[in-house]
């Protein structure tokens, strides 16, 4: 296999609604505060979009797209090793493995958004995220159920992250086809959602300033 070149796909992810990508109990988040905290960067403590979330969402949407040729009978990622999804995103099975062509980096908050959120933190105590309270409505009484209140942290709408994807292209790879496939994946996310609670309107994103460039 001869590595011919690297292609970069960059852009800005603009949150059109609140975005929620959950943190974990251990390690990353600080104790206290909202019980459902968002994921924060281990070093900067700023919210970010993990490359795994973006890649995973793109992959799963592309797999459910009829033209991909992927096999998702059991709900798990395709492992056929021959469809375009397996070729670009890596195959999940042990047979017919392919070198993963795509590399999706963590999307860090843009300088502009960081400034806005830092100001909000200083002036209003907003900790780089809004707390959204949700009630569960009791189906019989029609009022909020006891104990049904839950709080969720979300990255506020308007927040922007920089997206950085790299493609490795080997001899024999169809560059146009692979680049278009990734573009399609990004397009599908914009029609769907990123993170959790998409059915309640979370995670609507728009990708701006999309650029495709040769690296080396």
């Amino acid at each position, binding site marked *: 296999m001869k590595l011919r070149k690297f292609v970069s796909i960059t852009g800005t992810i603009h949150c059109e609604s609140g975005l929620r990508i959950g943190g974990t109990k251990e*390690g990353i988040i600080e104790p206290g505060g909202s019980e459902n905290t968002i994921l924060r960067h*281990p*070093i900067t403590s700023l919210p970010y979009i*993990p490359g795994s979330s973006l*890649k*995973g969402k793109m992959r799963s949407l592309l797999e459910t797209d009829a033209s991909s040729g992927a096999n998702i009978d059991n709900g798990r990622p395709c492992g056929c090793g021959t469809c375009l999804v397996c070729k670009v995103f890596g195959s999940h099975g042990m047979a017919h493995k392919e070198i993963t062509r795509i590399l999706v*980096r*963590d999307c860090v908050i843009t300088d502009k958004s960081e400034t806005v959120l830092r100001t909000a933190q200083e002036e209003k105590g907003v900790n780089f995220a809004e707390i959204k309270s949700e009630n569960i409505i009791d189906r019989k009484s029609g009022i909020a159920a006891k104990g049904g209140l839950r709080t969720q942290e979300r990255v506020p709408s308007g927040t922007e992250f920089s997206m950085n994807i790299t493609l490795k292209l080997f001899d024999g790879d169809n560059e146009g086809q692979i680049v278009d496939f990734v573009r399609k994946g990004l397009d599908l996310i914009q029609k769907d959602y990123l993170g959790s609670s998409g059915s309640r309107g979370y995670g609507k994103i728009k990708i701006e300033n999309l650029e495709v460039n040769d*690296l080396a």
Partner: protein
Amino acid sequence: MKTYRLKIKPQGSFLTLWQADTVFGNLCWIMAWREGGDTLKEFLAEYKNGNPAVVLSDGMPGDFLPSPAHLSLVEQKGEGFAAYKKAKELKKVGWLTPEIFQSVRNGNLDINPAQDAKTFKTFITLHSSINRISGTTGEEGSLFELEEHALSESEQFISIYLKIKDGWEEKVFALFKNLSLTGYGKKKSVGKGAFDIIGQLELFHGFNDFKGSNGFMSLSNFVPAKNDPTDGFYKTLVKYGKLGGEFTFCGKPFKKPLMMLTYGSSFKVNGNIKPFYGRMVENIAPVKSEVVQYGYSFAVPVRLEKI
């Protein structure tokens, strides 16, 4: 060979530690992909002959350098509780500032290093895969944990020290540049181990030999060669290696367990101190006989007192 330093800025967390042998393996895959398997074979043949083109250190946090294995043992020689306590403290010291490192290198072991030098940190993250039918995450069996590492806030970069044979500088830098586009270690396709290179290769003079040196300390994990010095101080680790690149998919991607001496190990040397010790380990992967394991030691001259 001249000694250089390369500064690397991780863009986030990484799953694979910056150990010399793993970095070397990653660079070899870049070489194979960009220049073909034959070029890599020739490159590795020289390593098997004891004539490496480049010897790497493990990745060090910022300007910090490792504490040598002999440091805590010296104090244990002393008597009483104070000596015991000091030895215990010194055992905990993982990293030294460049100034203290130079002092230790020159045989001064009565030092007061910062106990709390924050360098790397480790944490656990939770991940899950999306069910292709329901479109949601978090179902039974889809959750998994990852142990991740990151550089502490106080450090801006990781230093890798390199001894490079004359004429190989550009080539080595290009390999690292390509690696920065590919990503380092496990889960690179989701941005783990993503890094930028800061600047260029910088000539580094901090490890020059000096009058009175009588041993070396290794800045990398390594496997001693047959005729390497044996009188010294060391810790060991067992490496459960895995094959990389396309070899990951061969069905049996695991290497045999390999005992290595860790960075910080120090040995007494009679006569001249060589720029490197250690060797390549062959026959390490049962199903891929051509695979070798990098086991060279990045040697730094030191003064070892009688202990």
